[in-house]
């Protein structure tokens, strides 16, 4: 992260965490988090359960005060400002809708807290607009328990966006939805974000969700940020094995670096098999390293070649077929073959042998840490 993004008077930054650390007794839930959130962007916190995503979000919302470090909203230090005075709204993990209020009453809750309170007609109009926005027109008088999971999620969303927050925080909003509904909701959420121009921060443990929706993703592990970048950057230039594994599938092969020239390194794996590709920072000749090779960058053919393999398993995925293959030196790894690629070669059955290839530069040479 550049130093200038930490200055706070950076006009493009809507929120910032500076060295934010949160301890719960001996547990460090957030570890020295430095992050500047750009105005209008869609940012995701991605990481496994328990890595501190919710804690980071709750520090922005004001439910947790950082043990160390500072939180800035719109250039102002807000460590001591309680949640109800922050221009931030949150969609809670299990929605936290008010069970004693109707859908409309839930949605207008935020507007009714404003002082002076807006006139009733204005509130009603805003509620109707919000219901339109989340595609629930006419559902206002309903009771919360009469709504399905997906509908409740929209109500929670409407309740948050009606306040036109500077920052909308979403804590695993899609986790409780089934797959089809989740996909629809992802698209809707993205459309909504563009339409409203509000900065969204999404917490998720679902890499596909993060990859498909975000402008930037913040990969977290054990309370700290491992890498921040656009989905493409993270996919093409993961900093280490953890990121490469978390963002998309990858195969990992251990070996020794035999040469480095510029940004490219050559690593020799088991059996002297060569992996050439972009080297992470600090990779030097002679060190042991890991090569990451995406399944779709490996091609499989019937003929013999440098890297012979036996097909162990095959899964048909529609447009692609995923092969699990075995090489005496490299062990088992995955290949993703497109239908197009298969058309020429014909598909291989489990037990058949063939060979694999990848072009120079396809691999990523990562530090072995």
């Amino acid at each position, binding site marked *: 992260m550049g130093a200038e993004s930490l200055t706070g008077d950076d006009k493009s930054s809507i929120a910032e965490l500076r060295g934010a650390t949160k301890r719960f007794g001996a547990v460090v839930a957030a570890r020295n988090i430095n992050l500047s959130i750009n105005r209008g962007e869609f940012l995701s916190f991605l990481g496994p359960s328990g890595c501190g995503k919710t804690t980071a979000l709750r520090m922005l919302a004001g439910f947790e005060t950082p043990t160390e470090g500072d939180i800035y909203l719109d250039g102002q230090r807000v460590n001591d400002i309680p949640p*109800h005075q922050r221009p931030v709204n949150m969609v*809670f993990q299990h929605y936290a*809708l*008010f*069970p*004693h209020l109707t859908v409309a009453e839930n949605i207008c*809750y*935020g507007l009714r807290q404003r002082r002076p309170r807006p006139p009733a007609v204005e509130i009603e109009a805003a509620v109707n607009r919000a219901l339109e926005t989340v595609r629930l027109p006419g559902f206002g008088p309903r*009771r919360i*328990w009469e709504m399905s999971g997906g509908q409740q999620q929209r109500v929670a969303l409407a309740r948050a966006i009606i306040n036109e927050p500077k920052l909308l925080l979403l804590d695993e909003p899609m986790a409780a939805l089934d797959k089809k509904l989740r996909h629809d909701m992802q698209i809707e959420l993205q459309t909504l974000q563009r339409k409203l121009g509000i900065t969204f921060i999404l917490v998720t443990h679902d890499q596909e969700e993060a990859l498909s929706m975000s402008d930037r993703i913040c990969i977290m592990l054990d309370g700290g940020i491992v890498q921040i970048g656009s989905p493409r950057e993270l996919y093409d230039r993961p900093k280490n094995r953890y990121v490469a594994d978390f963002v998309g599938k990858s195969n990992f092969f251990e070996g020794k670096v035999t040469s480095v020239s510029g940004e490219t390194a050559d690593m020799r794996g088991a059996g002297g098999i060569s992996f050439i590709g972009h080297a992470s920072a600090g990779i030097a000749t002679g060190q042991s390293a890991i090569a990451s090779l995406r399944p779709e960058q490996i091609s499989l053919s019937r003929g013999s070649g440098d890297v012979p393999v036996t097909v162990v398993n095959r899964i048909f995925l529609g447009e692609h077929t995923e092969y699990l293959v075995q090489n005496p030196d490299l062990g088992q790894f995955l290949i993703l073959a497109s239908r197009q690629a298969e058309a020429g070669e014909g598909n291989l059955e489990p037990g058949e042998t063939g060979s694999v290839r990848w072009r120079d530069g396809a691999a990523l040479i990562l530090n072995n840490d």
Partner: protein
Amino acid sequence: MSTRLRTSLLLAPATAWLLAMLVLPLVVVAVFSFGERAAAGGYSAAFTLENFANLGARWAAFKNTLMLAPAGTLMCLIIAYPLAYYLAVKVDPKWRTLLLILVIVPFWTSILIRSYAWIYLLGGQGIPKLISTLGFGNPRLINTPFAVLIGITYGYLPLMVFPIYVSLERLDKRLLEASADLGSPPWRSFLQVTLPLSTPGVATGCMLVFILLMGEFLIPAMLGGGKVFFVGNALVDLFLQSRNWPYGAAVAVALVVIMLVTVTAYMRFTRRWAGGRDDVSLM
């Protein structure tokens, strides 16, 4: 065996118990209320409405009950709500169980003994003496409606604390966070979220205390000194002293009717108040 038959068989003991212990006595009381007092006391069969026509003679008992039972319920509510709130929300969880036990500790001793304690506290040597020593006049507490009110409030407080405690304890804390997130300061979140969501507990507690207070006789007898008597005291008097069973039965029937009416009205009211929610338990 059909499910239905099995259910009936399983329910048979409970049904028999209810019939023998609840319905039958009620029927007996209802029948007695239309009878006449036998010469030596007790019941002699007849059909007369005279017992009901004479209810006015016991008006004072009804008046006291109908004023002090709601007043006692209200006092219990006013004291129990903050206490339950403290126990459910504020207190350090490691002390919670201990404090909850302390709330029920008084139940481990008979109300008779505890009322004796109050007789002493409210009597000439107790609180009134303290007040007069401090120079605030010479108040009389024992044998007044106020003494009875203190006694019933004290006696029934735990029955109000527990249902409210349970409903507050169950309250999802994230709802309060959501409320804060939407711009509500803590005190307004209390009014808009905590209070409405604890109404089931409040309704249950009020109902419990009110119904039991309507039938109370021990505390008024001890702390009211025969001056502040409840319908319960009238019944003791009519059945055990003057042995006018039919008149006593009529008073009892009147009390049951009054309770049915107030409780039904109250349930209607709370149900509307709770916005027609199904999850509001009214006992």
